[in-house]
């Protein structure tokens, strides 16, 4: 059965549900957990003139701070639930690629992720990380809603 679960989170409320569901499942299956959050490359977010107003070092600091906040929240929850949990911040990668990369490197046998359920134009512009992970993953994926 699943022994090594990867939970992906971006710190959103919906991701929080995926973290809780992943921890519940891990507790029942006595699996170990890695919680990962991925921050995108600066170039993916800022282009052209806007780059002058949002320097790379500020972006990196903001990304580090945000990841630390997200992961410490997950760690606290894991300690409360008495679950063995490692946390990981993957920097400068597109979220779906970062998640799949870590799942491979850590030999995870299940990925738990939330789907934001975007539709229409929003989905077209922003895409769906969950769908990309589901499409390209070599291991089962649990999508939480």
């Amino acid at each position, binding site marked *: *059965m699943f022994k090594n679960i990867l939970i992906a989170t971006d710190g959103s409320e919906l991701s929080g549900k995926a973290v809780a569901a992943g921890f519940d499942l891990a507790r029942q*299956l006595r699996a170990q957990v890695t919680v990962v959050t991925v921050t995108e490359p600066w170039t993916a977010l800022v282009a052209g003139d806007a780059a002058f107003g949002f320097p790379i070092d500020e972006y990196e600091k903001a990304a580090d701070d945000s990841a630390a906040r997200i992961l410490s929240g997950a760690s606290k929850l894991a300690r409360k639930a008495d679950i063995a949990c490692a946390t990981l911040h993957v920097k400068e990668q597109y979220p779906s690629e970062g998640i799949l990369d870590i799942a491979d490197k850590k030999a995870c046998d299940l990925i738990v992720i939330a789907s934001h359920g975007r539709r229409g134009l929003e989905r077209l512009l922003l895409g769906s990380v969950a769908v990309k992970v589901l499409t390209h993953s070599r291991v*089962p994926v649990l999508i939480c809603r």
Partner: protein
Amino acid sequence: MYEQLLSTMDGSSEGDKDLAGELALAKRLFAKVTVVTATEPWTEAVPLNLTRLADPPRPC
């Protein structure tokens, strides 16, 4: 946690392998499993220009 799992099958060997995993998961979670297989409507499975050749079987 999860109490009702829906397992889908299409008769392929991959599907059989998945079912074994799903049953193992259900056992660990003390969950019920419903196994479902779906068949497409006749009109979607057969292109329009072939529908004459592929009449559905008639009772003898």
